[in-house]
């Protein structure tokens, strides 16, 4: 018998309560992103960083010394893995199911995130294209600025429900809505 296995997003039940259209301040959850942990081996950090910058359809997030997250919303996992594993001195671990990717955008986004992270998100300090690991809603997260008023947050799957609830709670005064990106 062939199994018909249904993939289920961890935030499926949490998002149920949101209906209707997106408000100016909106949290969108990416249903099936491709995410890999990329590790550079000793002495290869510089080369790997350069090679990663050239990867196609893949956004690179800084996690720490010699460690990145490679994120794609367009390319498939095999395509991403093939590109990344061609880089010498790299080890890869897929995290597409282990991490949850959310984008939060809108005019009040910095005011909302100021309740969630301790890092200064002023554009002079945390510019577009920058990313870093930090605590977000008491959980280890990777935060990236992808636009003037857009940030992407990557959190461990097991904590995603908790982070989602706190983000939406903190966004309440700014009428933050939430949905899956494809909804």
């Amino acid at each position, binding site marked *: 018998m062939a199994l018909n296995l249904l993939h289920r997003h961890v935030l499926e*039940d949490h998002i149920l309560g949101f209906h209707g259209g997106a408000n100016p301040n909106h949290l969108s959850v990416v249903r099936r992103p491709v995410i890999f942990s990329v590790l550079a081996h000793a002495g290869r950090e510089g080369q790997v960083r350069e090679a990663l910058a050239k990867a196609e359809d893949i956004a690179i997030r800084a996690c720490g010394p010699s460690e990145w997250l490679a994120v794609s919303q367009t390319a498939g996992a095999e395509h991403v893995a093939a590109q990344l594993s061609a880089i010498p001195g790299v*080890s890869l671990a897929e*995290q597409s199911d282990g991490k949850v990717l959310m984008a939060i955008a809108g005019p009040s986004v910095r005011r909302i995130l100021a309740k969630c992270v301790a890092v200064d998100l002023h554009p002079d300090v945390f510019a577009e294209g920058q990313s870093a690991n930090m605590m977000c809603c008491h959980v280890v997260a990777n935060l990236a600025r992808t636009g003037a008023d857009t940030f992407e947050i990557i959190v461990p799957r*097991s904590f995603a429900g908790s982070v989602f*609830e706190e983000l939406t709670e903190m966004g309440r005064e700014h009428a933050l809505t939430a949905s899956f990106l494809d909804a």
Partner: protein
Amino acid sequence: MTSYRLDAGGAINRAQALTFTFDGQSFKGLDGDTVASALLANDQMLMARSFKYHRPRGVVTAGSSEPNALLTIGSGLRAEPNARATVTELYDGLVTTSQNRWPSLKTDIGAVNGLLSPFLGAGFYYKTFMWPASFWEKLYEPLIRRAAGLGKLVLQPDPDRYEKCWAHCDLLVIGAGPAGLMAALVAGRSGARVILADESFTLGGSLLSENVAIGETPASEFAKRTIEELASLPNVTLMPRTTVFGWYDDMVFGAVERVQKHVASPSPDLPMERLWRIVAKRAILASGAEERPLVFGGNDKPGVMTAGAVRSYLNRYGVAVGSRLAIFTNGGSGYRTAADLTARGIKVTAIIDARQQAPDLGPDGVRVIRNGAVVATKGRHRLESLIAERAGFQEVIDCDALAMSGGWSPIVHLMCQRGAKPIWSEEKQAFMAPNVGGAFVAAGGAHGADTIYACLRDGAAKAAAMMGELGFSAYQATLPEVEGEYDPSFAPVWYVPGAKDKAFVDFQNDVHVGDLGIAQREGFRHIEHTKRYTTSGMATDQGKLGNVNTAGIVAGMRGVSPAEIGTTTFRPFYTPVSFGALAGAARGEHAAPVRTSPLHGWAKKNGATFVESGLWYRSAWFAKEGEKTWRDSVDREVLNVRANAGLCDVSTLGKIEIFGAGAAEFLNRVYCNGFLKLPVGKARYGLMLREDGIVFDDGTTSRLSEQHYVMTTTTAYAAEVMAHLEFCAQTFWPELDVRFVFVTDEWAQMSLAGPKARIILSRIVEDDISNVAFSFLAVRTVTLRGGLKARLFRISFSGELAYELAVPAGYGEAVADAIMEAGREEAICAYGVEALNVLRIEKGFVTHNELDGRTTADDVGLGKMMAMQKADFIGKRLSTRFGLTAADRLQLVGLKPVEADKEIKAGAHLLKENAKPSLANDQGFVSSACFSPTLGGFIALAMLKSGRERTGEHIVVWDALRGAEVPAEVCQPVFFDPDNTRLHL
């Protein structure tokens, strides 16, 4: 009518009347009022009863240092005790209630304490309520608490929301008076990111209360214009209603913003209060100065208040606090109050100046008594007259309010919260801000500036200097001229001797001069001891008004300078902060982040009861219909796993992927057993020691390819093991090429255990998983029917034929459902961590119950795992220490009760048979215990002194907590299938 609202003037909106109640009586106030100003406008001078003697009290101040006028504001669940009427913003419909009185504020039975006061002085409680000791908690403390005290807390949950927030800036300006406004303006115009925070609901500080002209406009108008300009600058954030309460490491300031405290119907979308952590590159303390009360007999009578407070009520709120005021002063402030009052047509009956000579002149027609003093006050619920003394002659002065001024103290609290002490200045006769480095400086009144012009100048200069340091080109401010200033200099008068009535130093805690004298006589001479003995400075106002007078009076009693007495210790919080604000959103189930397994949904629909395990919610057991207790479910699950099969969620175990040419060598060094020769496609149980030879953690590590491993850790120690690995790789062996990444969340991992596990699994997995093709400890990436790739491990924590299947987390629920469906005929069941625990105790497997940070590998029977022939591994050297190899160490044994139905409880201690129950006779303890449905009785694992050589001995399990003694027999720790035949089926 003696205190009343004037027809004109004040920064209040006369068009907007607000209705509120005090002790049930309805009053009218105005928009812009505090509760205190509104009560005064309604001739309600009596606002409170004092803490200990229940004396009638009114306001002393118009600000956050108020010691007397503490009220309960709000009602029902929102009632908040001990709010200071002087800073509580009035709103329509506000309900306020007085405290610490019975039956009413005017007739308070507790006032009898005043008559008993000769017996209630400082130290009375300590001396009187000492014997018998057992009476303290049951009798004395509850009695004292009922008699003396403040408002009552609401004990139901707070209905409001709270939140915490971070802010970042180049310059934080604390206080929006003249110095703060000017500092913010200079920094704002220089282009810096500025936060200007002020505790009041209207920014402007003393500019709202002082009758001067700045740049030819009234001070309040100047403040308004400056604030408008600041508001127009995008780089400036104005934070009214925000008290900066603490200064912490790395220039982080704590502040609380009262978002909706002043709102009649709070919005459910907004927090009631917001706690700010403000990270500032530079900060300026522009908190101003506090006017000191004078200490004389009866100085606590309602109607006696500071001269500055009288001006605040007059100029900011348009309220006359009396119709005939007397002034008692030692400096210019009293004269300014007299001038402001007479200018508004309010009678000043006399200015009593403590100084022999003074440059100040009273208003025309006002009598000035130089070298005079107030020695007594008359009146019950408010001042009716006072007795002044000059050169030994006493006279009665008619008045219904008294403005007193004892000089000024800079408000330096925040700068002294991290260890620095304020410094006494002989010149200023005040404790001044210490130098705490250039990043945080005091400006204006907080720095001792004593005119408004000096404040404006100091604020501008301090901000300009900081702008230069931060690399901004500092805006050059043109300072406006200030007209109508007065000379606020003063000559200190610490107290007026010879009073018959009490002369209060600390109003809120009812400490008077006599108490300070007792403390000195009894040897509590250090100011910190004086404070504890008398409680001076220990109330909710933390002695904001009284501490300086305490220091001055104690100095006088000892014949030294206040510099030698010093101050007590300043600590956060500057003013009280609610627990709600401190907790923020972290309450109830959100007190800590919740961590759920990918199989949480599967467990839920199978009837799981969850148990919190760290942050994780793990399925503990799966109750079926008809099962009455958790034991019913657990017994069934255990028996079913042994007889058929069961599926258990093990996703919470830590998983770490390890890569690199040096990975094998690395593992060989962090585990005490050998890992160099682990073949690809195999798993091995590994034991990690700490450097000191004690067991750290255990788990299996599998070799997926030549240079790629996946390690599992215990649920509890996942993060610690990851940190340990990184630490070892980075600091001990940087030459090894090895990298790690946490993948715990990527995989839904389930254990399928039981004699029928293979049959069930073969319906799911396409690969050959026969015992030959996939033997014990085999590991492989397999394909599930339908194409999904998964990792399969043949490992067991139950002693049964078992597999762990790992699939990408999003598929976990579907795969678990498929396995349950596939095993339906074999009567598969879901089992939880409780059954898992029983299964492992039956097999004598250890967990952190046994690996508790005190045990060695040998203690738990795993001594043979230590590969001492290896050149080195973590823990090798210190594991040979004498103490760790002693023969009388506690060793892992099994225990069975002699009578099978007797229960052994974990945590109970072990005694030799017939030994007297005592810790001296302690032989060890029970680490894990359960009912074994397989064996039909209670069993336990225990750590017993020299346990391995005591098999067969009868001992006593002594449970002192529950008062039970159970005879038990020592046995091998493996209760079931000691030869592991079932593992290899």
